[in-house]
């Protein structure tokens, strides 16, 4: 198996290099930075909405940095990629990019000079965008304040630091064509499809990726990952205790605390914050499309969830010799999360409805226990204190195991100790294995 992987990587490198040599993209001529006043304010305003739906501000924004000036490290199994400056600064940003150069970057993953961008930039999704939407995004970005900021060099090992091999990647994985409405879908589902598959690039996190980090087309939205968080399946093994309705998902996408589901956490938090800042139609359409894809809910699911919830409302077993996890839940969590506590007003979800407890592994739960939930600096929002420092690894293991048993009808998590210790999970290991082999040039 490993020999095969190495062979694939080598073929990709050689093939990609040869292909890139043959088809290398031309530079698009630099322009004088356009006058911001030359853009129609309505177009700029539409571009702002689209940029929020596309979450451009999430990656192209370093912590504590200027909006859209880039420099944020984006982790991939192969190494760290830094986002670029997309303000109209002529030297370090996209100030000298023509509309054609911008459109080409969005669809083909090429910079103005013709160099390849890594597919951490979701051009495989953005290629679906309509011309007028790309035009509006261009107008929005070109009217931002230019910021002089050079993005750090990405930290990828050989051969992934040879950008022309991405020509090979694109040949293998980049589909062509714009979005085509599905005549069998009504509105707003087609709008939802356009936003989910294109601009919103939901699949970038929620679709599993193959060894070469391309999304697996036949497992669309069936669960992936981002930054060490599990991105739950939206189709197939959906972890929600109570089946999603269009209304519930619309509220969730707009950062409302939805009964039976709670709020978006981790990498989903900024997505929902962005969607709460654009007209509701976007979330309505996305929710309609996603719930439609997921199909009609399992008719017994709601009753099962209620039975689990009923069972979990028994008194917490904290007597002598009780499960240490029960003591921790009672002392640290119950105040906000237990059914019937007046402090549920602080928006602690009743844990029988927590999707984090129903995922294939405990990653998301451990993140939340350790780091809590807090809004970005200076903003209001949902809050939970983190317990890093208060709970040891062993205690987090005990707590997670107790929560899974009390609040779900699912089997105990396997490898819980490894998850809490942050040891690589299997999905990551495959990528690391290829990398290790390529690095050593050897053959395991």
């Amino acid at each position, binding site marked *: 198996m490993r020999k095969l992987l190495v062979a694939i990587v080598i073929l990709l490198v050689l093939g990609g290099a040869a292909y890139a040599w043959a088809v290398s993209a031309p530079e698009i001529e630099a322009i004088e930075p356009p006058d911001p006043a030359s853009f129609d304010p309505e177009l700029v305003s539409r571009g702002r909405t689209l940029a929020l739906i596309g979450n451009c501000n999430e990656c192209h924004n370093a912590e504590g940095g200027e909006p859209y000036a880039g420099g944020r490290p984006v982790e991939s199994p192969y190494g760290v990629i830094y986002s670029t400056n997309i303000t109209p600064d002529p030297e370090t940003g996209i100030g000298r990019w023509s509309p054609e150069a911008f459109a080409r970057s969005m669809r083909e993953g090429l910079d103005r000079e013709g160099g390849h961008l890594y597919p951490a930039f979701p051009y495989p999704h953005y290629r679906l965008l309509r011309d007028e939407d790309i035009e509006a995004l261009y107008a929005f970005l070109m009217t931002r304040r230019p910021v002089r900021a050079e993005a750090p060099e990405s930290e990828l090992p050989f051969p992934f630091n040879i950008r022309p091999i991405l020509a090979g990647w694109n040949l293998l994985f980049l589909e062509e064509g714009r979005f085509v409405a599905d005549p069998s879908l009504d509105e707003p589902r087609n709008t939802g499809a356009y936003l989910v598959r294109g601009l919103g690039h939901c699949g970038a996190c929620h679709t599993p990726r193959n060894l070469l980090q391309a999304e697996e087309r036949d497992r669309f939205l069936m669960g992936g990952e981002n930054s060490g968080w599990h991105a739950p399946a939206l189709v197939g093994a959906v972890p929600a205790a109570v089946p999603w309705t269009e209304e519930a998902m619309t509220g969730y996408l707009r950062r409302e605390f939805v009964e039976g589901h709670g709020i978006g956490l981790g990498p989903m938090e900024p997505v929902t914050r962005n969607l709460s800042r654009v007209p509701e139609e976007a979330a309505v359409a996305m929710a309609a499309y996603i719930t439609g894809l997921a199909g009609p809910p399992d008719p017994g699911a709601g009753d099962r969830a209620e039975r689990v919830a009923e069972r979990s409302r028994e008194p*917490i077993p*904290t007597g002598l010799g009780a499960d*240490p996890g*029960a*003591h*921790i839940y*009672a*002392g*640290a969590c119950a*105040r*906000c999360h237990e059914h019937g506590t007046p*402090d549920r007003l*602080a928006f602690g979800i009743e844990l029988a409805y927590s999707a984090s407890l129903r995922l294939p592994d405990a990653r998301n739960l451990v993140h939340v226990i350790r780091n*809590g939930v807090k809004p970005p*600096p200076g903003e209001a929002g949902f*809050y*939970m*204190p983190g*317990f890093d*420092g*208060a*709970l*040891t690894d062993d*205690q987090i293991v005990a707590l997670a195991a107790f929560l899974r048993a009390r609040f779900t009808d699912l089997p105990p998590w396997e490898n819980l100790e490894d998850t809490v210790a942050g040891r690589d999970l299997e999905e990551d290991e495959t990528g690391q294995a290829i990398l290790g082999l390529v690095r050593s040039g050897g053959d395991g």
Partner: protein
Amino acid sequence: MVTLNVNGAPFETDTDPDTPLLYVLRNELELNGAKFGCGLGQCGSCAVLADGRPIFSCLTPISVLEGREITTLEGLGTIDAPGPVQAAFIEEQAAQCGYCIPGMIVRAEALLRRNPAPSDQTIRDWMEPHLCRCGTHMRILRAIRRAIDGGGAETRARDGETPA
């Protein structure tokens, strides 16, 4: 029976193991420095140190603290011989009503033990989980700065940098 180590002394208690530490500190040990504020880990007035790291004692059951060194405000100094952070808070008169101050001092202490020369931004980020309803934040920040370098340098841009 849970055995705790508070300010260097062992303490045995029959209280339920899921009881938050704050109640044991105040009701049994009569260490009243740590305060009950919100009871939800949202204000910081109950902060104490566990193995040198700040925790919300209102949400930390005593069952998880066996074998760990707990330090409260009282463990940082006495009225006659206050610790350096305590002394700096007194010199800057950082308290208005004073309710949040024990938590603030304890949290600042934890930072300075780990990073003796933090930048102003690091101090602000670090102190962020703590609320002060009176609004003495600027004095609190000055007090922490004074605990670091005697109040000589007002600001420091980067961690570890020598004050100008």
